[in-house]
């Protein structure tokens, strides 16, 4: 009965449908569910190189301490540092300092996201604004945030506003730039598809261009976070606010008191927070790429 495709397609549409279903099934053949235990092996696969790197750094650190280039009260070894770290983490005051820093980071970053979104959306949509501010925004990105502090302190005094001001100036340009780049690189075929479907102007922007720029925007967010975190640490070292302990302020006083172990312990906390949040962005990016099919599943 399959000898003549004309008759089979006409008299028995079922056969035609089944032929299509068969072809579909064959083409999707490779897409089986992920084997069990894969999650754990994935985590371990990422974890062990990190542990190895940490081990190497610790060994080098200990080596430098043992070399005797600096006396141990100037440059503390890993053992002493981690001891101090443990002590500090067991006091509520230290956690309060961490909380103050994190609160500043989160508010500063949140305002930056808002500002970056508004500026990025306007600049990417309005041609005149693009011509006027496009390169300025890129220029702002290259400006070292510490250079803003004299002005910020003049404007706001030694207050948290001065810190937030600089954090926003550090992060917002990257976020705006991420959005602008995403809008610029929206695949023309998607614009055409949106246009043919009837989306115009603002609706095309909202329903097609903005979603299409999401990966680039996410990259901008990640970079913005890095700038925000750096600006914040610089700010907390420069702008010391009485009765409000923070991680940067801790660094400042540890240096004043020549508390080498305490200084290194706080640096480790700063590093770990930075890495942790970067991992969050990485995870979001990975999830997005999987959903969009931008990354092939590994083997």
């Amino acid at each position, binding site marked *: 009965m399959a000898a003549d*495709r*004309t008759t089979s*397609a*006409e008299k028995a549409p079922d056969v*035609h*449908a089944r*032929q*299509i*279903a068969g*072809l*579909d099934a064959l*083409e*999707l053949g490779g*897409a089986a569910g992920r084997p069990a235990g894969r999650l754990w092996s994935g985590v371990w696969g990422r974890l062990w190189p990190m542990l190895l790197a940490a081990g190497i750094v610790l060994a080098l650190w200990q080596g430098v301490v043992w070399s005797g280039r600096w006396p141990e009260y100037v440059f503390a070894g890993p053992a002493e540092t981690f001891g101090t770290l443990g002590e500090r983490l067991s006091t509520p005051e230290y956690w309060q300092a961490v909380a103050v820093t994190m609160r500043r980071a989160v508010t500063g970053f949140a305002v930056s996201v808002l500002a970056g979104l508004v500026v990025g959306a306007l600049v990417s949509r309005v041609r005149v604004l693009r011509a006027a501010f496009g390169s300025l925004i890129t220029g702002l990105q290259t400006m070292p945030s510490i250079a803003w502090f004299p002005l910020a302190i003049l404007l706001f005094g030694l207050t948290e506003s001065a810190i937030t001001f600089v954090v926003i100036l550090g992060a917002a340009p990257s976020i705006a730039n991420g959005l602008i780049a995403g809008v610029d690189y929206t695949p023309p*075929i*998607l614009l*055409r*598809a949106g*246009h*043919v*479907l*009837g*989306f115009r102007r603002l*609706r095309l922007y909202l*329903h*097609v261009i903005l*979603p*299409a720029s*999401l990966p680039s925007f996410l990259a901008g967010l990640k970079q913005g976070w890095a700038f925000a975190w750096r600006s914040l640490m610089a700010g907390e070292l420069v702008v010391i606010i009485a009765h409000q302990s923070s991680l940067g302020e801790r660094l400042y006083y540890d240096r004043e008191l020549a508390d080498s172990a305490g200084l290194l312990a706080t640096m480790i906390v700063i590093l770990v927070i930075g890495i942790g949040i970067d991992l969050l962005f990485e995870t979001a990016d990975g999830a997005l790429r999987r*959903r*969009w*099919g*931008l990354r092939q599943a590994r083997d």
Partner: protein
Amino acid sequence: MTAPLTERTAGETGDDQPSVLLDGVSKTYGQGRNAVPALDDVSLSVRRGEFVSLLGASGCGKSTLLSLVAGLDRPTAGRIDTRGGKIAMMFQEPALFPWLTVSANVEMALRVRGVARKERRARAAELLEIVHLGGFGARRPHELSGGMRQRVSLARALAQEADVLLMDEPFGALDAMTRDLLHDELERIWRERGLSVLFVTHNVREAVRLGDRVVLLSSRPGRVAEDFPVGIGRPRVIDSPAVAGLASTVTERLRQEVLRHGR
């Protein structure tokens, strides 16, 4: 408009009113000495419910012509009249939105018209059923094969409930077997819905297999070189002697067009 949903074929309706009319359409890119004429004085009409294949070698401005009809671009001279009918278009790539599920992609065509969410769902499910993708609404476009994605694209175009469907080499990137099956599908859907189709291709057999007419465009600049009526009864089979016979006539004419540029 009350488009009859019952089965019908072109010619049976006796309706000779064109749903797409191109009158002396020219398109030139660039200006002055750098001007490149893409289309030159093209006149062409597609009757309601008619399937017209547009055929030509590279550089004949086939895709330009479709863009003009779709309103993505404007002609330099001449007139395009689509009688106020709605126009849907399919591209060589599926052009699906990767951030949306298959179903949501189809729904985009309804969303632009403000159709309520629940109804959108139902309509999308129906349309996916029509292109044999019933169970795939929740998938992401990248999880489907090329042929399946192109069918989603077709479902999305159908969701526009347009009177005219423009197709720009929609099956060009597919393997032969998938393409043959999609020809059958397209023919069935075209007949059921009474669509007017303008189908661009560089594949002669495909043009003959599908079209009520095959319009051959010359190259650089694109002009209508010849208009072949296809008097072969439907359903057609791409490997049948009738299709192959007309295809070789058309190919011969196409070859002459290409040879003109060989000197």
